[in-house]
């Protein structure tokens, strides 16, 4: 049991490290890049292909500033992770109980 938990933690640590490397590498490789959103890039291509196209519908609401957007982001990620953390905490406790029984 302990052995398998250790095994799992090691495996998942490697996976998480790989994800971090994949995210950091581009920043190291392209130091001068802007790293803007790809959707903005796509809008540029649209204007290039169809210069006459005008967006016919605007958004209902936009976050008033980058700070507020970041706030929503941080809260969202925190709560989402909170749920996932709760789930696995619960599942782990349940497993332990079952093993005892």
């Amino acid at each position, binding site marked *: 049991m302990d052995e398998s938990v250790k095994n799992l933690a090691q495996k998942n640590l490697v996976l998480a490290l790989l994800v971090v490397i994949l995210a950091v590498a581009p920043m190291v490789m392209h130091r001068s890049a802007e790293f803007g959103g790809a*959707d*903005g890039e796509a809008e540029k291509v649209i204007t290039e292909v169809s210069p006459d196209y005008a967006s016919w519908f605007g958004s209902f609401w936009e976050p008033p500033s980058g700070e507020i957007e970041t706030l929503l982001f941080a809260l969202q990620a925190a709560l989402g992770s909170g749920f996932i953390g709760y789930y696995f905490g619960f599942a782990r406790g349940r497993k332990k109980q079952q093993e005892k029984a």
Partner: protein
Amino acid sequence: MKKNSILLSAYFLLILLVFPQSAYAMHIAEGFLPVKWAGLWVIVTAPFLVVGLRSIRGSIKEKPDLKMLLGLVGAFAFILSALKIPSLTGSCSHPTGVGLGAVLFGPAAMSVLGCIVLIFQALFLAHGGITTLGANTFSMAVVGPFVAYGVYKALQKMSAPHWLSVFLAAALGDLLTYVTTSLQLALAFPDAVGGVAASFVKFAGVFAITQIPLAISEGLLTVLVFNLLVSYSRQELYDLSVLKKEV
């Protein structure tokens, strides 16, 4: 236990309501598809949502304990599509997180969850859009999950190891989502000289290439969560026939 899971589902819905995800890359922006195309994608997507709702209702009715797990796959898609990650092309994009749910609950269920995420994002964070909801749901919540599910089932049939099936399912579902977005844009905005094909190459250059490292990341993260589920939620995986009981 039952009360807990109801409370948790309510909590999760509340998160979705109050903090929709913000996502800066992928979805077709509000108003950026001509009316004709916007309508077409709504019509194409609608049946998947109907089937998805039925499929969710079916799995929950059969096994009410699965609600928590459904919340988990929703939360996973929710977080992953909020992570804007830098890519090799010098711009950012985000994974979709729908592959995990597609493997566990089947693709149609994820059409519904993906669509919910997209609606709130369009309403509160000016991402994607209501007018482009049909098209965005089709790429992220129909093509993504169905590709993931197909890849997973095919690899399982060839008795590939679980981790490999899950990895490729999530990664390819992610990548194909963005290929679909590129195709949708190319169909609506064909190049004056080269037509749809030339235009597709341009949009795919923006979306699909950026997405390759992110698709790999999504695959890795999906395997990570899947490993945890195999350890701690074995019974649920049996219930969903993702794992078979070894006799």
